[in-house]
């Protein structure tokens, strides 16, 4: 059985993907995926998501991460959220 992580989409990201969340398998034989490769993967799955990802942040397990931090890896069971520019208040 493949190892999976979850991706959540909010606001404009959800409008672009038409899903609230999905489970995605890690690449075969790997136990993790870098943020850079995650972005490539998500753009391939959802064409309309590309421009939104340019301006979004990721949160992993409810913590913001820096998108260009190469030490961060998404692992099995992680919950990744695509966070478009926020507008609470």
């Amino acid at each position, binding site marked *: 059985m493949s190892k999976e992580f979850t991706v*959540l989409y*909010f*606001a*404009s990201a*959800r*409008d672009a993907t038409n899903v609230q969340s999905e489970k995605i398998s890690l690449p075969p034989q790997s136990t993790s995926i870098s943020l850079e490769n995650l972005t490539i993967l998500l753009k391939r799955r959802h064409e309309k998501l590309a421009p939104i990802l340019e*301006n*979004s*942040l990721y*949160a992993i397990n*409810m913590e*913001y991460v*820096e*998108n*260009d931090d190469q030490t961060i890896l998404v692992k099995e069971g992680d919950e990744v*959220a695509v*966070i*478009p*520019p*926020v*507008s*609470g*208040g």
Partner: protein
Amino acid sequence: MTNLNKDFVKLTSENLILQDIINLVKDDGAGAITTFNGTTRNIFKDKIVVRLEYESYIPMAEKVLLNLICEARTKWDITKVAIYHRTGIVPVGETSVIVAVSSIHRKESLHAVEWLIDELKEKAPIWKKEVYSDGSVWKENAENRQKC
């Protein structure tokens, strides 16, 4: 979500009643209570807003807000804090967010409320969609946390 009965944070689809939230932070030892209420406006850049819809990554939003309160407590001597934010449809003129802080001296609660609403707008994973008569748009706060 509450922390030791001093910090109260909630994302809720229910109407926000200021007096209920004041009652959460009221304390006989605290001489000052400052509140900030955000209400939906009827006009945005000359377009008539029919209604607002708020969406949130609720568990993360509540966690972010509790962390902000924790950080505020390192900056100011404050007694109790409540942050309530509405989700779902909010009609024009109704309250979308309330921040309430009690403190012994007034400056602390005044400054903590201002800082908390600023930080909420920058960091809390909450999104507002403005619905006009001819369409809708997801807003972006000017304070947005920049992608590095």
